[in-house]
């Protein structure tokens, strides 16, 4: 009989305890962050979408080589001495290579961050943007090169011209060299 009343009292008392706890939570500060309007601060070393600064890229292709999923495609054109532009890098030193194509396929990218580690000029960096999506797989391939197709054509032509010129120069030099050596022999 005493057990019965004890039981009923425990039952009643524990309900009051539970109600006290829920009442406390009713007036507690809410933890919801209203996502598109408010955001959780992103840590500064977070690895989200990559961004390439084409001015800083020197076309060394280390990023493309280290990428474990091969999502980076780089094409390069050599800068020739007869280039009228005399292109320079961000720090004023002469540019040695044009980068006409620098594509990253974010459908493949695994956000390991190895490309940012190996980049000698800090051209490729992680941004804080993680809200990019696309209706097609092609839409996830980002093109970072800032060269126009005309400029690429021009640079290709210059390179071809220079290759022929260089060959001729080399042939002439070789001739001279052989002349000199034959003279020496004689």
């Amino acid at each position, binding site marked *: 009989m005493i057990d019965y009343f004890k039981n009923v009292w425990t039952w009643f008392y524990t*309900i009051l305890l539970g*109600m006290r706890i829920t009442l406390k*939570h*009713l007036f507690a500060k*809410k*933890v919801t962050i209203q996502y598109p309007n408010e955001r959780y601060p992103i840590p500064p070393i977070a690895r989200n979408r990559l961004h390439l600064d084409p001015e800083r890229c020197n076309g060394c292709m280390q990023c493309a080589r280290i990428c474990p999923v091969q999502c980076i495609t780089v094409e390069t054109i050599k800068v020739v001495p007869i280039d009228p532009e005399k292109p320079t890098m961000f720090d004023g030193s002469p540019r040695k290579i044009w980068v006409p194509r620098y594509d990253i396929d974010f459908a493949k990218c695994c956000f390991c961050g190895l490309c940012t580690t190996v980049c000698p000029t800090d051209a490729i960096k992680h941004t804080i943007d993680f809200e990019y999506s696309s209706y097609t797989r092609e839409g996830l391939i980002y093109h970072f090169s800032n060269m126009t197709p005309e400029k690429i054509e021009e640079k290709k032509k210059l390179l071809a011209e220079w290759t022929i010129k260089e060959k001729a120069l080399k042939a002439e030099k070789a001739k001279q060299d052989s002349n000199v050596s034959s003279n020496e022999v004689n």
Partner: protein
Amino acid sequence: METFNVFEKIFGLNFLSALISVILPLVFLIIYALIAILGELKISAWIQERLGPMRTGPYGILQPLAEVVKLIQKEDIVPAGANRLLFNLAPYVIFAGSFAGFAVIPFSAAFVPAEINIGLFYVFAVGAFAVIGIVMGGWASNNKYSLLGAMRSASQMISYEIPGALVILSAAVLANSLDMQKITTLQDGGFWNWFLFGGPGNWTKIWIIPFTLLLSLIYMIASLAETNRTPFDIPEGESELVAGYHTEYSGMKFAMFFFAEYSNMFIVAAILTVVFLGGWTSPFGTFMGGFWWGIFWFILKAMFIVFIQIWLRWTLPRVRVDQLMYLGWKVLLPFSLVCFIVISLYRIIY
């Protein structure tokens, strides 16, 4: 305080005043249901430290409207093999049953749709319609989960009607009346005259105060079980029975079940308010008393009880069927019987 129906006074005892007396509670019910749904969403969210709906209107206050519009748009499906007539009738029976209860609820000294001298008895009688509607819907759905939910609901409502009725009987003994307006009028003149604190009378009422407190507690618990709300929501236990007796209902018919649940919540809250919390009387005697303040006090008290029901829902887990039966027959029934006997003795002696 004198009680009357304000529309009968203005328009006379004719069809117009009767129509207004019927429509006004229906309008109130719809507005109240929307507010209660919003309250349910918001309070559940706040207890879980969430914000709840925030996008529809300022602070999400239009969310219940959006949900009702969504329910109305939904396709109305009748499952194959269902008994069409009973299946289509069940939501209306359950809603009509719960709405009929509004007929005797005194919103103010000046307004009660139908002032009959057996109001409390009437509310209990039409409250039993809910069981018929639930069993009809559950059986006609041709679904074993619906049938199980309906059977559980019927057994639960029958076992909880008894302690609930004993509480009302005790109150009737104390008030010497079954008329809801008369019971309310008796408690006029401050909160110490409420039946929660023994009702009107001299200092001798002190020794029945514990019993009246216990009675109101018993009615609160029994009413939770009658309206199938947590912790007694085993007829619609999501994890066991999908949704219980309304598993097969969709669209407008589901909305009817939904409205009926909320209107039942208000009816039991109103009974508790009238019988124990003094109905439309002001808790401070004549201060803020009168016909207009009466509406305010009545709705405030009833909504507070509704808030406690929602609060309990988000505090307690669901009880087992055997625990429910134990609580009903072995705890609430003996306690309410003891209270009834004590209060009857008090009435005989004083």
